[in-house]
């Protein structure tokens, strides 16, 4: 894929709810299961929204933070792209509602993209390309999910993994910016690995005003059709076998080797997955920042959350290779430079707009 040239990342912010939920308190697992769960996944706690707070609220908090940090007038924003799988309502697109809530001008284009764990590299590619080809001066890439709202609390295979978060990345047209290289992939044959089967038209289920009835899945877990189903083993083998190649392709497109990058930023699904990918690519643990221990799997927002949870590492300009992978199956990698002090510390916020 061609490089995206002349587009600069200016600032990254992430917001999570204030409420902390601990693995140690999850009563659907016994104490020994909790210990093993924590060892394998790396998750000791997560931030979970209270009823009423949406992904859009968390993204809006993050968007306000980047605008304020950069001193950007909302009127200067020409594009707002939101990537989420937990929008406010099926119609209209949540990004359009956010254009109004953020008081962005009517000349600002806005639309949603339906992607999960692979969102960040895809988002950089889409927003970067649009800035470049349409000559948009400034844009906001918002990425976030409230996965806790779609998982059944008693579902041991999903509930204790996910944390809620929203993020905002500010990008700007800048002829002198270093190039962004991406590698983006899809494999719909793996659609059942992570799926919310109901709620869309293909499910042939009654429309949403019908009562959702629990049924027992082949894994023995009771869910209704609006709940997320996650087949962890399938995701695990997909991630360790196909993600390293994508990261390699993005790095070689950039003309830089693994040792030329300050940090490898990985989607935070599971510690064992990330340890395996990092080992295959020759990144020592000190060059692979994490957020999974305190934030869990924050789905689409995991890469910005990991940046912000380690903001102190980004006081100076840094070259980063980032990779997101999961639901779809969809995966992608991106190489980019973050300017000095462009990563803001994580914000805890229960604000609802």
């Amino acid at each position, binding site marked *: 894929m061609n490089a995206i040239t002349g587009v600069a990342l200016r600032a990254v912010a992430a917001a999570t709810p204030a409420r902390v939920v601990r693995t140690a308190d999850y009563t659907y697992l016994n104490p020994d299961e909790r210990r093993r769960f924590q060892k394998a996944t790396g998750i000791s706690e997560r931030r979970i929204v209270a009823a009423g707070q949406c992904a859009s609220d968390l993204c809006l908090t993050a968007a306000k933070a980047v605008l304020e940090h950069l001193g950007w007038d909302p009127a200067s924003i020409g594009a707002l792209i939101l990537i989420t799988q937990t929008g406010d309502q099926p119609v209209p697109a949540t990004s359009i509602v956010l254009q109004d809530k953020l008081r962005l001008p009517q000349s600002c284009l806005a639309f949603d993209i339906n992607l999960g764990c692979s969102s960040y590299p895809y988002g950089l590619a889409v927003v970067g390309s649009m800035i470049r080809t349409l000559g948009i001066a400034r844009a906001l890439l918002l990425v976030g999910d409230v996965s806790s709202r779609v998982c059944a609390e008693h579902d041991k295979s999903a509930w204790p993994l996910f944390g809620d978060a929203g993020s905002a990345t500010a990008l700007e047209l800048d002829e002198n910016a270093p190039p962004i290289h991406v590698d983006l992939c899809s494999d719909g044959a793996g659609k059942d690995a992570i799926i919310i089967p109901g709620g869309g038209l293909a499910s042939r289920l009654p429309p949403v005003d019908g009562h959702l009835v629990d049924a027992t899945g082949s894994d023995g877990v009771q869910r209704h059709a609006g709940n997320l189903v996650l087949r962890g083993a399938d995701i695990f083998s997909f991630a*360790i076998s196909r993600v390293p190649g994508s990261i390699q392709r993005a790095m070689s497109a950039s003309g830089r080797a693994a040792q030329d990058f300050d940090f490898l930023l990985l989607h935070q699904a599971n510690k064992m997955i990330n340890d395996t990918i990092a080992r295959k690519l020759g990144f020592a643990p000190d060059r692979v920042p994490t957020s999974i221990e305190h934030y869990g799997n924050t789905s689409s927002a995991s890469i910005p959350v990991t940046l912000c949870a380690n903001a102190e590492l980004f006081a100076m300009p840094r070259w980063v290779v980032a990779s997101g992978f999961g639901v779809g199956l969809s995966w992608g990698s991106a190489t980019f430079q973050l300017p000095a002090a462009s990563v803001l510390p994580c914000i805890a916020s229960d604000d609802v707009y």
Partner: protein
Amino acid sequence: MTIEDFIDKFAFAIEVDTNTLAPDTHFKTLPSWDSLNTLAVIAMADADYGVTVTGRDIEAATTVADMWAVVSSKCVATE
């Protein structure tokens, strides 16, 4: 590459004493077996044998020897 060696690695991955496993052990009936063990076995196959075992491979296997057949055949295929 022997099944004895594989049993040692399998036992270490799923955190049981290696003496509790034999080729004909039905590993999914072990009291401690759960979905986390599935991930641990996939990670072990990748790290120690350089092959990708899928969730379906583990679903289809019953005994430790079945798993060894999967891993060893994938090793041959990638040589």
